[in-house]
């Protein structure tokens, strides 16, 4: 198979995640107790045997950069290839991923890959894209779009209509085709042509150039049939997280044959106290649990004291929930302290968000 380079384009991640993205980019949002969104994209690329990956980090990247390090924990820090961090820079035109491509073209140019596999970070699944890559290459496609037969209407989502042979007939923001997952393959040569055309117009987003130009190219779709989670808002985030508590969904995402690598953590195993009653929950390591936890997702290093209650909720790393606290239908961000007197109750349709500890300098002052 021809060589393929992976691009994780975080500029295209739609962000309606409210306080979840106060201090982090979408790709760095924690998910499923142990992971961040970007783990799934990275692992799917690695399962597809792509080991040359560039990331357009865009905004709020500090948490992401420290999470990724040199890519060592994902096996990506080899000498001749690996993970390239392409940071945002004040001279990149805001919100133009085309400018991002142009400013960093040398990095893409020096790879001897003929094709690029481009993805955002919000399509969460555990798979290998190898069969799509085979279709793309054997059919000599210029572009191949990964789509799903999702029937749910989503605002701002892009849909793709294809004929019976998979040939793309229409790409648009109107919902009258299959949902575009944000994952696609493109020939490097084709990408160069599209960027040249963008320079002649006022297009700032690659996808908009594609929408106007794809008919000039050999463009197909590839239908993804496995389970997936696709999120662009905090409500969807809550909903998708809760779906994981179903045992089949959990096992489907955590498939044994496709290990999901994530950043190495050094927590001790989770300890349950005498008074713990935990049911229907997903739990990370390093926790000290002595309260009541039902139908919830707990991340790492969390303490739930005796007499605290967590229900239908998501608790991020390092929270301390004191005895007597009551939390229901909520998302509690990192390092939060919930005192014994607090009662936090949201609704399933609109869970309450407790934001990450705010920047301390302001509080110091």
């Amino acid at each position, binding site marked *: 198979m021809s060589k393929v380079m992976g691009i994780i384009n975080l500029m295209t991640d739609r962000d309606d995640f409210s306080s979840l993205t106060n201090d982090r980019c979408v790709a760095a949002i924690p998910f499923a107790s*142990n992971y961040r969104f970007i783990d799934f994209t990275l692992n799917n690329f690695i399962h597809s045997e792509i080991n040359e990956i560039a990331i357009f980090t865009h905004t709020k990247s500090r948490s992401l950069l420290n999470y990724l390090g040199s890519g060592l924990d994902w096996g990506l820090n080899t000498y001749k290839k690996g993970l390239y961090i392409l940071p945002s820079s004040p001279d990149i035109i805001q919100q133009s991923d085309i400018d991002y491509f142009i400013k960093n073209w040398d990095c893409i140019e020096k790879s001897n890959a003929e094709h690029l596999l481009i993805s955002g970070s919000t399509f969460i699944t555990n798979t290998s894209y190898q069969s799509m890559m085979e279709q793309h290459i054997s059919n000599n496609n210029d572009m191949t779009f990964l789509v799903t037969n999702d029937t749910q209407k989503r605002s701002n989502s892009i849909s793709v209509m294809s004929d019976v042979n998979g040939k793309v007939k229409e790409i648009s923001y109107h919902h009258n085709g299959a949902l575009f997952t944000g994952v696609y393959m493109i020939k490097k040569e084709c990408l160069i042509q599209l960027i040249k055309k963008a320079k002649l117009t006022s297009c700032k987003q690659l996808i908009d150039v594609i929408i106007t130009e794809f008919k000039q190219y050999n463009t197909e779709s590839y239908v993804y049939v496995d389970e997936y989670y696709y999120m662009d808002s905090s409500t969807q985030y809550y909903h998708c997280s809760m779906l994981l508590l179903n045992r089949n969904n959990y096992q489907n995402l955590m498939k044994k044959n496709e290990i999901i690598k994530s950043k190495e953590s050094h927590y*001790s195993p989770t300890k*349950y*106290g*005498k*008074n713990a009653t*935990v049911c229907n929950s997903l739990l990370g390591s390093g926790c000290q649990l002595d309260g009541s936890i039902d139908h919830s997702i707990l991340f790492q290093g969390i303490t739930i004291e005796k007499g605290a209650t967590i229900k239908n909720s998501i608790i991020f790393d390092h929270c301390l929930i004191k005895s007597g606290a009551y939390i229901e239908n909520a998302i509690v961000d990192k390092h939060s302290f919930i005192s014994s007197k607090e009662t936090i109750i949201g609704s399933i349709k609109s869970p309450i968000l407790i934001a990450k500890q705010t920047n301390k300098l302001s509080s110091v002052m």
Partner: protein
Amino acid sequence: MKKECVTMLLAGGVGKRLGKLTSNIAKPAVPFGGKYRIIDFALSNCMQSNMTPVGVVTQYQAHTIHQHIGSGNAWGFDHSKNKLTLLSPFTNVNGGEWYEGTADAITKNIDYIDQFQPEYVLILSGDHIYHMDYNKLIAHHKNMQADVTISAIHVPWEDTRRFGIIHRNTQFEITEFEEKPMHAKSNLASMGIYVFNWDILKEYLNKDNENINSNHDFGKDILPKMLQQNKKLYVFPFQGYWKDVGTIESYWEAHMELLDGEFTEFNQDSHLFTYTQNLDFPPHQIMEGGHVTKSIVNDGCTIAGIIQNSVLFENVHVNKYSTISQSVIHQGATIGRYVDLERVIIQENVIIPDYTSIKVPVTEEPLILTNEYILAEQKVGGLNI
């Protein structure tokens, strides 16, 4: 490259009294505490005390330790060169020679130590569960202007016969040794942790090496000889949790003590952590019917049964209507339905069939369940003990 102190971590122990737990791995590589292996505690102490270089002396089933240590990454040993070296017995020019005792294991590595021209050599064992900042031990050694300093701890009187017992005067000075005495006159036990002035130790090792009647052991030969010849032997009294998991009973007991909070892998006082190799298992899941109390559960587990006072390593699966109590379950084991277990230790990847019931009374040693055991028991008609 001169270094003040070289650490030698003895990790060659056979651990015979651990029975099937050490049938194909070295004692320091035995899993402990839901995530670790016994050697992790000494290794983590070394790195966090900045005790480098460390020579890890392996012998029995050395590859099990070599595989575990791997790149040394997990303990931060890869920052720069020669921080950790695995020292299996190597042939000198005349052919292969095995380590015959704890002292011999150092004698055969004199060249390794000499390259650093150290003042001191710290000798550790890879068999113990504890947190310790070795800098305090070495500071004490310097303060006392000792030739040898032995770290020691008060053990229950009934355990004294398992240890080297030390008598000291009020100045920390050692006056007498008793090696595993039947009727001890002191309950201060050697922890097998020594600091030596390297020039003096080397002299004794070389003499001992020529003595064909010697066991080439620190406790039996080197230290008594030094005491006899009026070298300055001092005690460093250690405060804190320390456990020699030398028997199946003490191995099980140490896990129960972990659940009681007598020891945590994170030492609050000294900020020492325990590090180990990380495995990429997903979060654990407690399902409908699952109930976990006073237990330790690691990543990858899925639990639909009742777990009490037990330690579960990675990727253990407990099915519905089963109860596990006062047990230690190693990585990858699967427990069927309607199973009832008490005071057992389940080996890696063992599958416990439905309706198995094994409850070991407190008067007996906890039982180690292996696949062979399960198969054999099934043949003779069921697993209800």
